[in-house]
């Protein structure tokens, strides 16, 4: 199959098409799932609004400024979750032996796993995230320059790549520790929660670890600073905020390395 030009692509397209048909076969169920999925992100955003009902500023940021951070985080996480989030089900694939079958096929293991289970119901969530992002940017009184316009597009894209990398990297852990279960959640969903608020909210070593050690500060906080034209209250120079999307490239490279290492050292659970 690999000999034929475009053969691989056709195979992937067939996988995706089959998924789309099977997932939308039961219309009512699919609609329920679409609504249910958007609900979770709606409540995340509502939570921020409720918090601002009690306080006027959060970590030195107003509601409008915080919403830029929230929108960026919501869109990036929801889209990454749609595209690669299902990789967190890999413990089940390992346990049931499905991963063995996938590895035997003449296609890449990662794209197969993603396409085999692409959760189309999460489209609603990604679209809602996009709406929040656009609204937040429009309402934030941004002093538009060409550079900021580019950043307004690049930052969400980089965020998607970053969260996608986190999903893949944490899923790799299950190659070695099948029962790791919820552990990945603390970095994926935890990362989403962390990036929903200005980094100034957090303190001590916890901030150092999540913001700079794991790089979550560069997903939403620093791009938002650059867009809003604010200096970092924590004292990092301005160029850091502009260079923030570049961190996604590093993250993607690390995740790819981790995945390859995992696949190479994978041992089947046996029959």
């Amino acid at each position, binding site marked *: 199959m690999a000999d034929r030009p475009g053969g691989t692509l056709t195979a992937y397209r067939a996988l995706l098409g089959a998924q789309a048909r099977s997932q939308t076969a*039961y219309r009512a*169920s699919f609609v*329920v*799932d679409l*609504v*249910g999925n958007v*609900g*979770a992100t709606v*409540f*995340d955003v*509502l*939570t921020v609004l*409720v*918090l601002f*009902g*009690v*306080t006027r*500023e*959060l*970590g030195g940021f107003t509601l409008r400024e915080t919403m830029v951070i929230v929108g960026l985080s919501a869109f990036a996480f929801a889209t990454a979750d749609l595209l690669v989030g299902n990789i967190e089900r890999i413990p089940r694939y390992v346990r049931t032996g499905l991963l063995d079958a996938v590895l035997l096929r003449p296609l890449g293991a990662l794209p197969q796993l993603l396409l085999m289970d692409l959760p189309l119901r999460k489209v609603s969530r990604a679209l809602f995230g996009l709406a929040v992002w656009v609204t937040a940017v429009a309402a934030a009184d941004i002093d538009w320059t060409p550079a900021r316009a580019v950043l307004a597009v690049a930052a969400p894209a980089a965020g998607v790549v970053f969260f996608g990398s986190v999903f893949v990297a944490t899923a790799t852990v299950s190659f070695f*520790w099948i*029962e*790791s*279960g*919820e*552990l990945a*959640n*603390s970095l994926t969903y*935890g990362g989403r*929660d*962390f990036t929903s*608020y200005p980094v*100034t*909210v*957090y*303190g*001590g070593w*916890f901030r150092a670890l999540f913001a700079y050690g794991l790089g979550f500060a560069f997903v939403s906080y620093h791009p938002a600073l650059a867009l809003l034209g604010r200096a970092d209250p924590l004292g990092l120079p301005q160029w850091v905020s502009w260079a923030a999307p570049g961190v996604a490239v590093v993250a993607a490279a690390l995740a790819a390395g981790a995945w390859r290492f995992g696949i190479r050292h994978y041992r089947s659970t046996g029959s």
Partner: protein
Amino acid sequence: MGSVNATVAPFTTSNVILWFRTFWAIAASGFRRYSTYRQAALAGIVTNTVFGFLRCYVLLAVAGAAGSAAGYDRRQLTTFVWVGQGLLTVVQLWGWTELADRIRTGDVVGDLLRPVHPVTAYLATDTGRAGYAAVVRLLPPVLVAPLFFELYLPARWPTVPLFVGSVVAAVVLSFACRYLVNTTAYWLADVRGPLVLWTLGSGVLSGLYFPLRFLPEWVYQPLWIVTPFPSLLQTPLDVLVERDPTRVQVTLVAVQICWAALLLAACRLVQRRAERRLVVQGG
């Protein structure tokens, strides 16, 4: 062809001691069953702890320079978050579809043939699970928190028994809610719809995302009375941090107990209706 009635005749002898012994035995087996997943418990503890840090810092930032928000001071907010993270798995709002799965596959017949009412049997198992979670999942976050934050400790003695009672009521109430959601499988086969509604509602309206008192009073007060959600987490946590005087604490726990009793009764009612129409396919 005659039809077989799946329900077993109820106990004719109302032997309370025997009932308690059965309940205890099933609860103990529930405790053992959940205690086998040690690695998963460890992973869960780490996750709860991370979320404890996240939520705690955010709420402390809300309290900000003023030092208080919606009537909670900084230490009360800290206790609210960390004990809340621990209680989350004791009360277990999410991730229980065992009954729905058994209804869909027909395995539920096995439950109906036993001489113990299914609501009682499942409640006993869930009590055992909650007991295990109270030791393994509630304690660690509560022990980690004081290393990094200042916690609020109850100052009045009635708070302690009230908190314990409130947690027990919350466990029973949460079970009853989940049982009701699961029984929709008798009619719907696919419980995703009710499950989605329950997951969303119980997360936001129970006080997990933010203390409900952050909402205006005219929103949260009716919520507390006409929905069971605040009784799941908000009540035990408010009781523990002594947000209100003892009289109000007692009232809140009473509301909780009413909801738990009401929904348990509803479980039995729904179960009886369901058994009348249950058709199990296959031989």
